[in-house]
């Protein structure tokens, strides 16, 4: 069925507008212009054909209007999606920058702390001896909840 619709969509919209107007005029003419011999002799055929055309063209006009409405909605959404994609890229950049900055601060502080420990190592080691059990407890605590 979509193939039929696709074929019909190839016809310019103006054709349906003109065809509808002509069909309405022909339908009216079949009643009004009784003095024209051709119309009088073919009145029934003209009425049937023009009525069929009116129904078909009205249906197509509805389709055209509906299509235009949806196309406008799609265009609107595409603009919104493009804006959202731009905002997403900007947010990504902003979040990554904040993350990198915070990690850098942690590394800087860690560097300072490690230097301080190294500087005071002799004094620290002289005044405090660590029991091996303390290390075992620390390591056990460090691995609590690890994946098996």
């Amino acid at each position, binding site marked *: 069925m979509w193939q*039929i619709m696709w074929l019909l969509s190839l016809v310019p919209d103006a054709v349906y507008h003109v065809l509808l107007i002509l069909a309405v005029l022909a339908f009216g003419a079949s009643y009004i212009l009784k003095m024209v011999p051709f119309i009088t002799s073919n009145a029934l055929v003209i009425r049937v054909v023009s009525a069929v055309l009116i129904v078909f063209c009205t249906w197509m006009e509805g389709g055209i209007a509906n299509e235009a409405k949806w196309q406008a909605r799609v265009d609107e959404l*595409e603009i919104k999606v493009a804006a959202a994609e731009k905002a997403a890229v900007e947010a990504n950049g902003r979040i990554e920058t904040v993350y990198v900055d*915070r990690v850098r601060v942690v590394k800087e502080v860690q560097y300072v702390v490690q230097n301080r420990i190294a500087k005071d190592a002799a004094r620290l080691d002289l005044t405090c001896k660590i029991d091996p059990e303390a290390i075992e407890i620390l390591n056990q605590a460090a691995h609590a909840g690890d994946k098996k």
Partner: protein
Amino acid sequence: MRSAIIVSLLFMTGCVATPVDREFPAVPAGLTTACAALADVPATDKLSVVLTTVTQNYAQYRECSIRVDAWNTWYNEQKKIFDSVK
């Protein structure tokens, strides 16, 4: 009956989807790194060695915590942006 089927089929042709492709944005690579396991304190009786390992672990935890924060911020912001398109 046959005409009714044909007419209803014709009307159904109006129900054509008009999709607008969308994808949820990709997360920055830095945020997808898994947190490393905490380091063990080597066998020693020196406080400086213990302190070095413990402070390393603290720093590692801080890094991991920042990553989780960043991930949460990223998801919440991206979801807000994604949901704003209607």
